[in-house]
């Protein structure tokens, strides 16, 4: 931290002490005396009409205070409505809890409130619900079949969203192509699986007519907006307070029906009500993600140059839309071309409702993107018998091509894909690997290397949402205050769930104010304190939050120095700066102490305002908003080495290396941790994770014994090489990161497996790359001998 630079320092996290000692305060650690416990009775059927509900016995059970269904909740709350004006997207609506029909296994039907959770679950055993079971649609194709049962009977069919786009002249490029290459990619259904499940505690103050909602949520203000509206309250009647969050990954954004139910019950019963879902509920009924099939057709010349590309995505969105159904696949389609020059492009996206848990964004909602693009490049290389690295080089944008308008109109700038590619290959030493691979293959050991060049869309300014037809704002807000003692407080609308904001944002605020970051306290998650921002999602925290706090801290620094100049009898603050909590003055080229501390200035600003410059407001606070560029892009090159055990089909990741360029880094320690965590989530998804529904819509993934998360044994050490190409449009020079790792691993792992299995002439086009799937590819196949690389 020489010369007052705190941005970019590898400071250890100030959050850590409370977490390593078990003194973090998560939702269940917030004690609310007299609170009741809610438990939900959920549908055992994928699709059924509710004929009757008998709760007479349950009401008599020990400790039961209330049992409510969708009927009561319809009187207390406003139904959900999602109707953004987006072409091809159908408007949807549904009640707070289902009244007539359940749409997936785990759909909540009743809420039982009791003195404690054990008693509420006991009472659930005494409930009888009579269902008329309906035929279920359990996958995309059956959802779109003629005469398919309707998941949402208010709609004419299950096609919830359909959008197409064409730019250039793909038809002509296919007519002119020397070859046309087709490839397909099946990404399985996954779920976020934060180690802390969902939960909340609602407190209704009848005297003040005020609702306080304790909940771990990534976006406290947008959440409050929704909660207030659905409760028929004004936003001034609702306070959302987020305690520490035990992981979120996109699952803790929406206002879920259970949470609204708990809030409504707290008001109806005039008692605090809390809810903690168990792991089975979290896996079955919280939110799912992904499950899409992407198909590409590429028009290519004999050198592997891409002339035109067509993309088809079909996504299985589940039964309920807590997000616009076009949102996730749309981003994939918009950024597919990544680091490549693709002049002619068309996409077609279909999203279907099915009788499964509703989908939402999971860390890297666009996770499939790089796999699709890089897998397409590799399919081209296989078809033309070219080196896949060469095919990348032939198509990849170079520095001279930037800024580059992607075929969908997004502006790609300040990225370094070629540098990252070459650096990654060199760091991995691909030449040495090929020699080792050949030698091992002769002994029946099948190694492969996988590459994945990632262009990660991050930060998402308002202009992007508008252009993409996705409702929402991309702005963020923050304030910084210097208190009369000189203590520094700051706040931002984001909420942390492990990203270390209390450390990195303190670093950002500290720099213009010339204070030790340890003296800056970041306050988040309380909507009465924090300003209205759009919260944590889309790898926007560092860039949107860092930029807005930098802007506020700079404004405050200017004010402090203006006051200091007046106090020192100077005409201008031009030769003053803040350093080590003191005001310094440049005299003869050297900075010397001006005899004033930051605390001295703060004292005057608050307690002796007549000494301020004429017309200046007392106090030291600055509130700023910031709307980032439409999109910032980070880029990365992932290199993954795997070994495939051919007899068992087991894939072992033996080495993982990434070259990543996310611009200015606020704290390299924390950024590397985010990159490693994202890569691990990608590897875990590529190898293990899968929510399995059978053909009747029965969910077979209700425990961690079924839904497998990678442990320390499956995840290899992850080497990170950093590049720092500054983004010239953000205030800090940073771009976002923390989702690209998922994208890269999702692409690099199958690429490596395909390289390992090349001698067998098979191509994996599905995830997870489970032993069963790998064996299904290899069954009846034999190594066709050397040269089949």
């Amino acid at each position: 931290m020489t010369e007052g630079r705190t941005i970019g320092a590898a400071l250890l996290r100030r959050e850590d002490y409370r977490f390593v000692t078990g003194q973090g305060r998560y939702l269940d650690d917030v004690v609310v005396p007299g609170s009741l416990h809610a438990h939900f009775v959920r549908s055992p059927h994928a699709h059924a009409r509710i004929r009757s509900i008998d709760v007479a016995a349950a009401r008599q059970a020990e400790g039961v205070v209330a049992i409510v269904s969708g009927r009561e909740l319809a009187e207390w709350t406003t139904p959900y409505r999602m109707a953004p004006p987006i072409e091809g997207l159908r408007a949807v609506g549904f009640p707070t809890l289902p009244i007539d029909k359940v749409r997936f296994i785990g759909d909540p039907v009743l809420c039982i409130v009791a003195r404690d959770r054990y008693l509420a679950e006991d009472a659930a055993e005494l409930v009888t619900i009579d269902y008329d079971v309906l035929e279920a649609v359990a996958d995309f194709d059956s959802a779109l079949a003629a005469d398919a049962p309707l998941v949402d009977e208010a709609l004419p069919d299950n096609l919830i969203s359909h959008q197409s786009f064409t730019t250039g002249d793909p038809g002509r490029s296919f007519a002119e192509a020397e070859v046309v290459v087709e490839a397909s990619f099946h990404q399985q259904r996954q779920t976020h699986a934060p180690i802390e499940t969902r939960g909340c505690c609602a407190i209704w103050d009848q005297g003040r007519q005020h609702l306080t909602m304790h909940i771990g949520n990534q976006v406290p203000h947008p959440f409050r907006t929704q909660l207030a509206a659905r409760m028929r309250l004004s936003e001034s009647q609702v306070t959302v307070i987020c305690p520490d969050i035990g992981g979120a990954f996109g699952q803790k954004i929406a206002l879920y029906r259970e949470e609204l139910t708990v809030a409504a019950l707290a008001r109806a019963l005039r008692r605090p009500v809390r809810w903690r879902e168990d792991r089975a509920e979290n896996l079955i009924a919280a939110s799912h993600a992904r499950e899409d099939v992407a198909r590409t057709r590429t028009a290519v010349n004999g050198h592997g140059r891409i002339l035109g590309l067509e993309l088809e995505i079909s996504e299985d969105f589940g039964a309920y839309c807590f997000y616009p159904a076009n949102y996730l696949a749309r981003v994939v389609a918009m950024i597919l071309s990544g680091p490549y020059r693709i002049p002619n492009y068309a996409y077609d996206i279909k999203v279907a409702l099915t009788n499964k848990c509703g989908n939402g964004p999971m860390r890297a909602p666009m996770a499939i993107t790089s796999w699709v693009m890089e897998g397409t490049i590799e399919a081209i290389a296989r078809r033309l018998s070219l080196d896949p690295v060469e095919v990348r080089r032939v198509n990849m944008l170079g520095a001279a091509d930037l800024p580059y308008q992607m075929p969908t109109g997004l502006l790609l700038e300040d990225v370094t894909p070629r540098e990252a590619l070459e650096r990654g290959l060199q760091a991995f030493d691909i030449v040495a690997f090929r020699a080792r691979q050949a030698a091992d293959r002769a002994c029946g050991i099948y190694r492969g290397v996988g590459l994945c060049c990632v262009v990660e869309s991050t930060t998402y300014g308002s202009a992007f949402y508008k252009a993409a037809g996705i409702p929402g704002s991309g702005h963020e807000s923050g304030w910084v205050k210097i208190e009369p003692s000189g203590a520094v407080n700051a706040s931002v609308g984001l909420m942390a769930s492990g990203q270390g904001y209390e450390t990195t944002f303190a670093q950002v605020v500290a720099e213009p104010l010339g204070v030790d970051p340890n003296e800056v306290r970041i306050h988040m998650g309380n909507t009465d304190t924090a300003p209205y921002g759009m919260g944590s999602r889309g790898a926007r925290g560092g860039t949107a939050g860092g930029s807005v706090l930098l802007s506020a801290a700079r404004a405050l620094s200017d004010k402090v120095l203006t006051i200091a100049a007046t106090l020192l009898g100077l005409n201008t603050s031009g030769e003053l700066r803040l350093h080590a909590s003191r005001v310094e003055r440049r005299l003869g080229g050297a900075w010397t102490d001006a005899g004033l501390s930051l605390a001295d200035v703060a004292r005057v600003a608050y307690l002796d305002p007549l000494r301020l410059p004429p017309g200046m407001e007392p106090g030291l606070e600055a509130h700023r908003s910031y709307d980032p560029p439409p999109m910032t892009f980070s880029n990365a090159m992932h290199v993954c080495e795997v070994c495939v055990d051919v007899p068992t089909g087991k894939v072992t990741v033996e080495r993982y290396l990434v070259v990543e360029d996310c611009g200015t880094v606020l704290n390299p320690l924390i950024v590397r941790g985010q990159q490693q965590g994202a890569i691990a989530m990608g590897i875990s998804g590529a190898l293990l994770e899968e929510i399995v529904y059978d053909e009747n819509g029965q969910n077979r993934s209700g425990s961690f014994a079924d839904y497998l998360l990678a442990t320390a044994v499956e995840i290899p050490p992850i080497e990170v090489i950093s590049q720092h190409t500054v983004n010239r449009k953000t205030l800090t020079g940073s771009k976002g990161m923390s989702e690209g790792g998922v994208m890269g691993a999702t692409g690099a792992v199958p690429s490596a497996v395909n390289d390992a299995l090349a001698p067998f002439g098979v191509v994996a086009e599905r995830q997870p790359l489970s032993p069963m799937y790998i064996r299904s590819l290899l069954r009846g196949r034999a190594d066709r001998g050397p040269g089949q690389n």
Partner: protein
Amino acid sequence: MSQFDPVPIVLDINGTQYRVFAEPRRLLSDVLRDDCGLTGTHVGCEHGVCGACTILLDGAPTRACLTYAVQAQHHEITTIEAFGGDGNLSPVQQALHEEHGLQCGFCTPGIVVTMEAWLAENPDPTDAEIRNALSGNLCRCTGYHNIVAAIAKAAARRREGSPT
């Protein structure tokens, strides 16, 4: 309903005796958190996979979510609150902090408890042994890389600190 009636339970936790009145079916994890106020033990899955609730029962790592409180009587229970609460972090806690071996922190208490006990038995582990020992604790944030580095560092510090 007599089998559900609360019974007196005496628990020896971190060297202190706790007397609670709880139903025999109550999980040790719930009794630690709700009846004893020791909320550092976290509940992540309630079926023994995630490891967040790990405590020591007579020194051995044990899932508090798979143990009834009544079963834990007459045993010495050690929870995360026994480590570093006085400001002196244990070797594993200190190394997790230095190596950025935690993000959201929810799984961290289980990892501290598990690995402190394991290092006492395995003072000089390889990275592969650390990964194997850590495989009973799920972490969704870090990708384990920095946790493994932290455990190796804590092991080295423990060795330096020991008289032999």
